[in-house]
């Protein structure tokens, strides 16, 4: 889908990495409960938030994503006990690094969404889309090829 760089009709592309046990299941629940959120969000399933390498996030920005969300279990609830703690530390650094590169820090977000929080899943995705739509397209890291 060619992204329209004109601001008026700009629809952002948002990639969400969701851990299988909580956030992906939260996304499923949003579906089963027929909640709605913008179709701008596309989910990639990973076993745990700790499986998400900063490389994946940078690659998404390079390939034209306007926003990236990593969602995992609430602190203390990771299916693998401690994965989201490592994720949290890593992504705090990545956020500062992106800011250092001159990118708006809101473009990269980390959220804890449990399997029972379908409403939260929908809310986070809606808010993120709105925020990024307001920010406009990601010009900073997008490949110019």
């Amino acid at each position, binding site marked *: *889908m060619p992204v329209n760089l004109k601001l008026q009709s700009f629809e952002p*592309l948002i*990639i969400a990495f969701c851990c*299988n046990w909580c956030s*992906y*299941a939260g*996304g*499923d629940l*949003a*579906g*089963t409960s*027929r*909640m*709605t*959120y*913008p*179709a701008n969000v*596309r*989910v*990639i*399933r*990973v*076993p*745990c938030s*700790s*499986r*998400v*390498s*900063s*490389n*994946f996030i940078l*690659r*998404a920005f390079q*390939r*034209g*994503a306007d926003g990236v969300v990593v969602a995992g279990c609430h602190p203390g609830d990771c*299916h*693998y*006990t*401690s*994965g989201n703690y*490592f994720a949290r530390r*890593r992504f705090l650094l990545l956020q500062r690094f992106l800011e250092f590169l001159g990118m708006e820090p809101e473009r990269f977000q980390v959220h804890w969404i449990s399997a029972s929080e379908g409403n939260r899943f*929908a809310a986070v995705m809606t808010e993120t889309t709105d925020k990024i739509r307001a920010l406009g397209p990601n010009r900073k890291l997008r490949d110019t090829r």
Partner: protein
Amino acid sequence: MRRIGVFICWCGTNIANTVNIEGVTEAAGKMPSVIYADNYKYMCSEIGQSMIKEAIIKEKLDRVVVAACSPRMHELTFFKTAAAAGLNPYLVEIANIREHCSWVHKDKQEATGKAIALIRTAVAKAARNKELWATQIPVECRALVIGGGIGGIQAALDIADAGFEVDLVERTPSIGGRMAQLDKTFPTLDCSACILTPKMVEVASHHNITLYTFSEVEKVDGFVGNFEATIRKKARSIDLEKCTGCGICWEKCPSRVKSEFDEALVMRKAVYVPFPQAVPNVPVIDRASCRRFTREKCGICRKACPAGAVNYDQEDEVLQKKYGAIVVATGFDILDLDDFGEFSYGKHPDVLTSLEFERLVNSSGPTGGRLLRPSDQSPPKNVVFIQCVGSRDKSRGKPYCSKICCMYSAKHAILLREKYPEAQAYVFYIDIRTAGKDFEEFHRRAVEEYGALYLKGSVGKVFPDGDKLLVKGVDSLSGHAVEIEADMVVLAAAIKAKSDAPQLARLLGISTDTHSFFTEAHPKLRPVEAHTAGIFLAGACQGPKDIPETVSQASGAAAKAIILLSKDNLLSNPCVSEVNESLCTGCLSCIKVCPYGAVAEKTIEEKIHGKALKRRVAEVNEALCQGCGSCTVSCRPGAVNLKGFTNEQIMAEVDAICL
């Protein structure tokens, strides 16, 4: 070139209403490597599945993408479908176009666009899927039970009755745990020893159970089905085989120390059995207080023993044993009352904990069950029971409810009146919690038949007053201050985790909560399993519990252990990490982030320019790895990869999803 087949499900109208199925099928057919695309009303139905199977065979498909509901719903179904057609199940990918698309979006055009993107992503991933095989891990058909209280006893008996060998390791000289200390038990008031001792004897005589008392587990290695434990049998200084339990040694022993079993209310000898019904009924020499060991004098017990069983030179024995499953049943302690100075505990002999009271009413206890005041051996008339000492008390004790104190305080009030019909029990409480079968009735009996006087409120202070105790408190229902002249004060001290629970947790690789109780794998659905596969929890080590709850949890843990032990082999999850040794630089960052201790270092030998060189690399134990992928991200050279979710697969997904 791959031969990928894409199968799109309508899910009746669930998907078809918001996603243009024909459009999506057409788009899928044009995706790279896709040679076949089709759709059907219900892909998960028999007909849908046969459609997939036929296409796999006819079109020689080597990868399959099913665009349908969530993989958490039907991934396994389609794995089986593929396997039935001879395709390795791990070559199947699911695109979730229902929960994550048709159900959450209203606009058909948007939903269709997104469905196509999700399928493109799944196709990109599938193209990089590899065949994976679950490996078989043989199971060692024996169980280890740690802790010989009623929880451990029940678990050991159940597992042994199912036909498996069990080793029961108990730290103290006898099994029995706290229950052996109790007099009668709520809510039926049957005598604790009468129901417990037959079980203890059964454990000792069961052909499938080996008992290790006065022993401890020092180390546990390995993983589910294949644990290896190091057990230290502490030197008893008495030969278990020769001793007949006649008791002459402890009669003659001149050293006296406070009895742990009797809550330090009386003295025991340096050579002792903790209580008369101990199993095994063989004494130990407490080397810290025996004159032979402290002053190298004495030797009376050796001379006195008619069986020649005393052996001062006996040494600790260290055993290595293998187990398939472990049950942890190490029980609880009660809170130290040092911080509760207002109750004069430790300052006045007639201020007791409930456990001490339990020993005083017990017919095998220090007063032969006559319940006399420790200060002057006189029968008490007025006894004040104070509940929640340290429970539901964030600042000085524990925030949680200890659960059993309401019931045992009611029990104590009844026992008091049974011994001395003219005595009066006063119970200070915050709330009465009697939510068990027959519990509320039991509590009402204490009030209505046994005349216990319940006062809602707290006690401010207990003053020693001559040979009495002056209890000053508030009755919050009437709003009046109350003063009671008591002969005895009994404190229901909070239940707490064993102080060494965190060490044991580390040794076993399981986790504890903030109060050091062991945590279950899931608070509702997996309450008897620890987070680590193959380790199960029973009794008060997991949280405050009464006997019926402990026994049911123990039987539950035993059933889980039996399920595990009855398998010859375990099938492992093949989506685990692997190390590319040629890329690994041996930094071992991966070891630090692994929650399961599944990564270890090993040394490999390589020939470089004809020279043999040794090099350190990481190695993954596939049986321990649970597949979180934490290590893959910590790996700087990218040598560690997670099968089923490789860097290449996820990168390809990112590329495809952003198109």
